[in-house]
């Protein structure tokens, strides 16, 4: 074995080992974490009373403070969610009722973290006032409301010894809400954006954290675990605390409002903004669905991000959504996307097809050169290439069409990972969720098979027999590699292979016909 072979072998073996290991020993789940966090929170509340450190006291448990188990003040039911407001006047929870968001272990998706700051929580800069506030429950004008078609106005009032806090909230069925906070006198206070829950089984490369989008179109993203010292922002369009599919957003906050991003104990970002005596803004909590956000306020769509690849992924998503509007199915939209890319590259492939016909005259000369430079692949390659150029017939596709595929591939991956619309999107037969791996493994196997066949019929130019061998194994390696990938991505690759095969088959057929015609002459 050459060092090359050993290196590749080692790589392949370690890859399979990792796969096997993670199936046999799944990563430990952090069950105890939540309990710890709860006790920590109680401690932090006590601590904050002793010092003026703003770093502490972002999170307050309604139940621990009130000493009552029933902390829910109002319950609002929408078409596919239930939103609860607790006695501290915060959005206690928003539970999504759609089955596609449900998880086997934790049930329906919950959009607010169990511990940590909750949306609309008010903390006063003055510690004594704050102490009193977290012990005084709010009162509400209504206990329950149905938002299915329309909206509900909730007025929350907190009567402190020398201050009255009024929160006028209007909740709409699409998930957004209007907030109007009034204080009976001037005090310094902060309103919290709330924290999103973290999932232990989050997908590879999906980003979670906080985004601040400023009016000069700069978005700053602070990832969970990466938050540093407190940073202030002004002139903000929106601020969002997001997970893979959901977000809690404040917008229309006013240009002068100061938004602060602090960190909690786990270095996760915590967002709050400085309020005024009469303070109104808008909020949204729910899935990062393009159409919903766009219908509420087009600026909200800036909260949808696809990581550093947004510049390519966002237009791709727009195009996929455009296709989806016509065909009504995300799977078919992906198939059409593949076809469109093929059509765009057609001038190139057509040119390649034309040169194919000339190849016949060249092939004996190629054989000649191969015999002549046997054992010297470098010179042979150079000679063959020059011959192709001279005859104007080059059977090879070129690097550009290949490299162009990579950004498209990556953009689709990001879209499948982050676009909530593709969550639970069906295709045909057994594919029920394009954003998730194919549980039957059929699609990756089809992908591998088509790839193998495509390689089989495509001419290639090998100088190193070792690399040729690995090349032949590539479909197998890819099949295993693709097993855990979202089905939509595998679908894209498989369809791409099928189109390549069809195209190559046409070329080969033409070539054969040409050959026949020539020999009959």
């Amino acid at each position, binding site marked *: 074995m050459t060092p090359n072979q050993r290196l*590749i072998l080692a790589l392949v073996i370690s890859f399979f080992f990792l796969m096997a290991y993670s199936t046999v020993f799944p990563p430990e789940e952090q069950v105890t974490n939540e309990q710890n966090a709860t006790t920590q929170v109680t401690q932090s509340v006590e601590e904050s009373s002793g010092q003026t450190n703003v770093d502490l006291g972002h999170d307050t448990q309604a139940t621990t403070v009130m000493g009552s188990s029933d902390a829910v003040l109002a319950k609002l039911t929408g078409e596919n969610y239930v939103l609860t407001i607790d006695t501290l006047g915060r959005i206690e929870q928003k539970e999504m009722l759609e089955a596609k968001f449900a998880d086997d272990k934790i049930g329906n998706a919950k959009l607010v973290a169990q511990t940590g700051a909750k949306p609309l929580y008010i903390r006063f800069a003055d510690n004594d006032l704050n102490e009193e506030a977290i012990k005084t429950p709010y009162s509400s004008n209504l206990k329950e409301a149905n938002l299915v078609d329309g909206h509900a106005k909730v007025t929350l009032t907190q009567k402190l010894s020398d201050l009255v806090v009024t929160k006028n909230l209007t909740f709409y069925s699409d998930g957004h809400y209007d907030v109007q906070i009034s204080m009976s006198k001037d005090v310094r206070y902060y309103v919290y954006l709330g924290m999103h829950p973290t999932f232990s089984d989050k997908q590879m490369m999906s980003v979670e954290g906080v985004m601040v989008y400023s009016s000069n179109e700069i978005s700053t993203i602070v990832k969970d675990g990466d938050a540093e010292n407190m940073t202030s922002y002004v002139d903000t369009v929106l601020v969002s605390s997001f997970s893979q599919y959901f977000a809690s957003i404040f917008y229309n906050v006013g240009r002068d409002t100061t938004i602060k991003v602090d960190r909690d104990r786990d270095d996760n970002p915590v967002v709050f903004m400085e309020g005024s005596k009469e303070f109104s803004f808008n909020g949204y909590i729910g899935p990062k669905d393009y159409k919903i956000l766009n219908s509420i306020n087009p600026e909200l769509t800036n909260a949808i991000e696809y990581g550093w690849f947004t510049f390519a992924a966002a237009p791709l998503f727009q195009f996929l959504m455009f296709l989806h509007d016509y065909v009504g199915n995300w799977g078919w939209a992906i198939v059409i996307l593949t076809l469109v890319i093929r059509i765009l590259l057609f001038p*190139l492939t057509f040119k390649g097809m034309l040169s194919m016909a000339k190849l016949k005259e060249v092939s004996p000369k190629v054989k000649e050169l191969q015999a002549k430079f046997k054992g010297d692949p470098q010179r042979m390659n150079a000679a063959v290439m020059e011959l*192709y150029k001279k005859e104007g017939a080059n059977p090879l596709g070129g690097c550009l069409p290949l490299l162009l595929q990579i950004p498209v591939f990556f953009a689709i991956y990001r879209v499948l990972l982050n676009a909530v619309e593709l969550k639970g999107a069906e295709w045909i037969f057994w594919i029920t969720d394009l954003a998730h791996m194919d549980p039957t493994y059929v699609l990756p196997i089809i992908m591998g098979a088509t790839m193998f066949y495509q390689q089989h019929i495509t001419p290639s130019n090998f100088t190193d027999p070792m690399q040729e061998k690995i090349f032949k194994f590539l479909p197998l390696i890819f099949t295993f590699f693709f097993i855990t990938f979202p089905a939509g991505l595998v679908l894209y690759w498989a369809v791409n292979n099928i189109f390549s095969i069809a195209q190559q088959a046409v070329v080969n057929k033409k070539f054969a016909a040409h050959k026949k015609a020539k020999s009959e002459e």
Partner: protein
Amino acid sequence: MIRKFLLSLLTIYQKFFTLIGYGSCRYYPTCSEYAKWQFEKNPLHTAFFQTLLRILRCNQLFPGGIDYPLTKKLNCKIKKDKMSPIKYWYVPKGKNQYYLIKNFSKGKSC
């Protein structure tokens, strides 16, 4: 430093990732090999620009064939005590320009 990093990236690419579309380059030397020679012998910005042009050229609209990188400077520093083996031949092309041609035959020295 950056040069070394980029060159090692190219080597990794050649070892593994190139397999996806192995043997599809229309040129000699292949695009990745061309890039390597460029980054070894030319200033970084020139190398980057030339490599980009080369990749853009590498499609069915261009004939392909032999396309050696060009360089302007002759930086053949020969160390006093050591006779280093020849790595590149500099073949003059007009004024102050040289084709870079890698030497693959072993055993000879400068």
